[in-house]
């Protein structure tokens, strides 16, 4: 199944949850924010939230900025 993560088309497992995806990507859940199809999702939803084909996911974090 293909989804769009941060603008890039990516192959992921069917119905993968956000939590699983983050783990697979090696990301610390405490340092990122997730937007799913333009809706920001709370951390508490990630374990239940399964992706569907063509979903758009934005995973963002803080970096240095002025």
């Amino acid at each position, binding site marked *: 199944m293909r989804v769009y993560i941060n603008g890039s088309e990516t192959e992921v497992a069917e119905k993968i949850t956000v939590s699983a995806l983050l783990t697979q990507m090696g990301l610390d859940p405490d*340092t990122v*924010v997730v937007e799913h199809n333009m809706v920001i999702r709370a951390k508490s939803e990630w374990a239940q939230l399964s992706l569907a084909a063509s979903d758009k996911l*934005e*995973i963002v*974090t*803080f*970096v*240095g*900025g*002025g």
Partner: protein
Amino acid sequence: MSDVLEIGGIELRSRLFLGSGKFAANKVIPDVVAASGAQVVTVAVRRVDMASADENILTHIPKDCVLMPNTSGARTAEEAVRIARLARAAGCGNWVKIEVISDNRYLLPDNFETIKATEVLAGEGFVVLPYMSPDLMAAKRLADAGAAAIMPLGSPIGTNRGLKTKELVRILIEEIPLPIVVDAGIGRPSEAAEAMEMGAAAVLVNTAIATAGDPVAMARAFGMAVEAGRMAHLSSPGAILQYANASSPLTGFLSE
């Protein structure tokens, strides 16, 4: 001294806001924050970068600082709102520096989109500090839109050119009943001090500290200069005169 700056319900003793971009190594940031005395630190929001296992910037910023995410990267009010909401979802407070820029050469902010974004975000409970091109009527609209402070530029971002917009910033300070924070362009502690002497509520500095040979010492220098300028503003400076005025008595002396 009980001279505090209140923004968004928070009482700040330091009037130097610090940007966290452009440091050669982020691990110097804790020392920079400590040396500067800053209590407000800006950060940017970006997509996670899988390629570079970049450390988390938040680990370098002391927990007692107010975090002020910016909306850099936004070219429209809509994008700025979206970025601000993402930033707030990170659970680090509700301050936001609105920055909407579509000019690629001078990176000058778009006051029109900034006002729109300010209105939306202030309505959603954000403490909104808009970065703006100094213009009195735009500042009035930002105030009406719910801004908590107004942040006009001194000169283009990252240029270290100083307080080139003095004439307009001076008018904002005089006419707008909100804290005026000079943001962008301040290149030297003397310029930060001058902004404070003019009555600015605070200054936001990033490039001048981050790109100095010794960023920690430069941070301390800016912290002291901001405090000095503020203190001078509160101490009723003497008049500026055309003709000289002796410091030593001019009364008669040996030759008379």
